[in-house]
């Protein structure tokens, strides 16, 4: 992997929370996926998730934190626990002087797939091609109606947020 010169680098951390825990991705300079993964949290999910995100921030020192817009986006149905967790994570980022960007699910699909009705699976397949070394082996199988969401999808959700934030900053809400 060829690293860019320091002046060309912006490190973006994206976190995607789910009922199991969260997925995260760190992109540097737009083209290098420097860290990614998923954490399953047992017990107090919000406290565990917050501690996990804090550790990742400490490890990767990002310039920008990207989250899904779960409060104001049209059609969002996130549970109150995750909405509360987002507020805590945003407060943590502000404490560390990290800019926060929120992207609505529809905007994310629209930017990555050019279609706001696109599916998570289509997005994951696109990202697995873009970061084939890191993600191709982690692409979940296509989900059928009777299957639960694959935990690995949390990683792809986070990578998608990071890529979208890097590609186009125009329609984002800053520090919201």
């Amino acid at each position, binding site marked *: *992997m*060829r*690293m860019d010169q*320091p002046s060309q*680098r*912006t*490190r973006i951390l994206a976190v995607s929370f789910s009922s199991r825990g969260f997925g995260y991705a760190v992109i540097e300079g737009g083209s*290098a*996926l*420097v*860290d*990614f*993964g998923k954490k399953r949290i047992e017990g107090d999910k919000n406290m565990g998730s917050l501690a996990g995100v804090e550790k990742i921030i400490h*490890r*990767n*020192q990002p*310039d920008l934190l990207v989250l899904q817009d779960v409060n104001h986006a049209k059609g969002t149905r996130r549970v109150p626990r995750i909405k509360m967790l987002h507020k805590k994570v945003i407060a943590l980022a502000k404490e560390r002087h990290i800019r926060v960007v929120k992207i609505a699910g529809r905007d994310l699909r629209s930017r990555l797939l050019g279609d706001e009705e696109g599916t998570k699976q289509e997005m994951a397949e696109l990202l697995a091609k873009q970061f084939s*070394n*890191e993600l191709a*082996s982690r692409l979940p199988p296509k989900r059928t109606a009777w299957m639960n969401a694959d935990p690995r999808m949390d990683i792809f959700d986070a990578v998608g947020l990071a890529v979208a934030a890097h590609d186009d900053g125009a329609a984002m809400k800053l520090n919201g």
Partner: protein
Amino acid sequence: MASLSNYLRTHRKRLAFSQEEVAFLLGVNGTDKATKVSRDENSAREPSLQSALAYEAIYGTPVRELFAGLYEEMEQKVAERAKLLGFRTTGKATRQRQEVIANLLSKLTV
């Protein structure tokens, strides 16, 4: 923005190795092998020269790129010393030495 201190985790994940597997390749013995790799990745300690070179062999990436943040830090320190050396040797340095010092000074960011 400055580089991360090291990119060991990035390269390990790219190759889908576990910390235990990397520890095995490094030749680490003992029951808690993954801990050594974890400490290297989290910059809790600086690996030995042997380990650094073993990482280069495993990941196929030069040490200066694997430890980019540490390299940049060292480069700055050397450049600062080169500035002092430049003052000390003004007038008596050969052309080749002057070029080396000028090259090091060009890397000073502040």
